[in-house]
């Protein structure tokens, strides 16, 4: 019955021609260095941008590449274990299942979350954020802002499997008894992690809030008398 759309109270820096520096946070007048095309922060001389340039396009490019590489990352083996007894190739998923069967449920869950859930969550969340931003959606801005923060927070943990493979491949090198090698899936998986990290850095969360100020123009001009 009652739909609450969060309205923005107060002025928006970029509407007043002010830019905040992403390095030092100083708010400065955008018109100040107006003669040249490149504006720099008066304090630290970082480049100033109204919004991250081409944020959406770059982010899409990174996300789509990550989606494509996500397939080999999950299908190719990331680890090959050989001993004189047997030889096995593990993909990420089969590694998790193997851990589960050997009774290490806790660790199996951690690896499952870090290597399978987190990359998938990041891809889907960033896709949703990009779509909503492109449509200039005003829906649930707070929830989308939180979603973005979560993406930023959890992204790095996907590197877990890469480190496990690195350690095992270095340690288990005992002549004919047992050897572990990293598989090509590790390269693809590493690429997915790196691409999604770049994508979430490239996404500009201010785009989530920008469409809202159109809705609330009257409100905040009234509020800032």
């Amino acid at each position, binding site marked *: 019955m009652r739909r609450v759309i969060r309205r*923005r*109270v*107060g002025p*928006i*820096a970029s509407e*007043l021609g*002010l830019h*905040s520096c*992403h*390095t*030092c*946070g100083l*708010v*400065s*007048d955008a018109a*100040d260095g107006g003669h040249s095309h490149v504006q720099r922060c*008066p*304090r*630290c*001389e*970082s480049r100033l941008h109204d919004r991250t340039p081409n944020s959406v396009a770059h982010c899409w490019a990174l996300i789509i590449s990550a989606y494509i590489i996500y397939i080999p990352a999950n299908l190719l083996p990331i680890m090959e274990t050989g001993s004189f007894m047997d030889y096995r190739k593990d993909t990420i998923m089969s590694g998790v299942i193997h851990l589960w069967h050997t009774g*290490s449920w806790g*660790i199996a869950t*951690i*690896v499952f979350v*870090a290597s399978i859930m987190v990359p998938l969550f990041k891809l889907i969340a960033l896709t949703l954020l990009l779509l909503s931003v492109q449509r200039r959606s005003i829906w649930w801005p*707070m929830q989308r*802002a*939180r979603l*973005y923060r979560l993406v930023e927070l959890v992204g*790095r*943990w996907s*590197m*877990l499997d*890469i*480190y*496990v493979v*690195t350690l*095992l*491949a*270095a*340690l*288990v*090198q*005992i*002549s004919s*008894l*047992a050897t572990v090698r*990293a598989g090509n899936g*590790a*390269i693809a998986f*590493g*690429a997915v992690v790196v691409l999604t*990290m770049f994508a979430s*850095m490239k996404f500009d*969360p*201010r785009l*989530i*809030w*920008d469409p809202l100020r159109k809705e609330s123009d009257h409100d905040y001009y009234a509020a800032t008398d």
Partner: protein
Amino acid sequence: MGIDPPHFVACHECDLLLKEIPLLPGGVAVCCCCGASLYRNTPDSLQRTMAFTLTAVILYVIANVYPILGIEIQGIRNATNLIGAVRSLWDQGMHLISVLVGLTTVLIPALQLATMVYLILPLLMKRKPPGIALIMRVLNVIKPWGMVEVFMLGVLVSLVKLKDSSIIIPGVALWSFGGLTILLAAVATSFNPRDIWEHLDEQSESGEDRCAE
């Protein structure tokens, strides 16, 4: 007119312009629109960060020199330290992954610690190190890529994976990595970039140390 409104901050997540308010020690300013944390008041930030950083440097050296883990299968032993693991991955032809691991666990943490010392030590002695802006920009860029805490979890997962097939010999570096993880988190929470910029402002206002342009 130089810097226009000197005591305003713009939220980095929603661009709302807010008036800066003083905070109690340990306080955090939060954006009233989107809830992003804007700035913190960290008392004695420089001293604390320096203490944590110097301890972290010592642990970093130990963590990289000594073996992390060793295993023993039927009487044959093998141990590795982090750099050895990176090198063995390189030797197996996994160059990209080897570089990725080397960057995120060896080089970037080292760079973070080195830049911290370079920034904070002179500031504590009331001097201004050259190139603060550049260093801060570098710190910003590399910050997400230092992954010692993820590596630490990787060590634990490896322990579990190895425990059935071999005897595990924990190395000295295992403990120092644990300590390093905690100390790097402490450095990150005690370090307050605003302090650095405020120092910079104070010093250039008082007229000394102003670099010629």
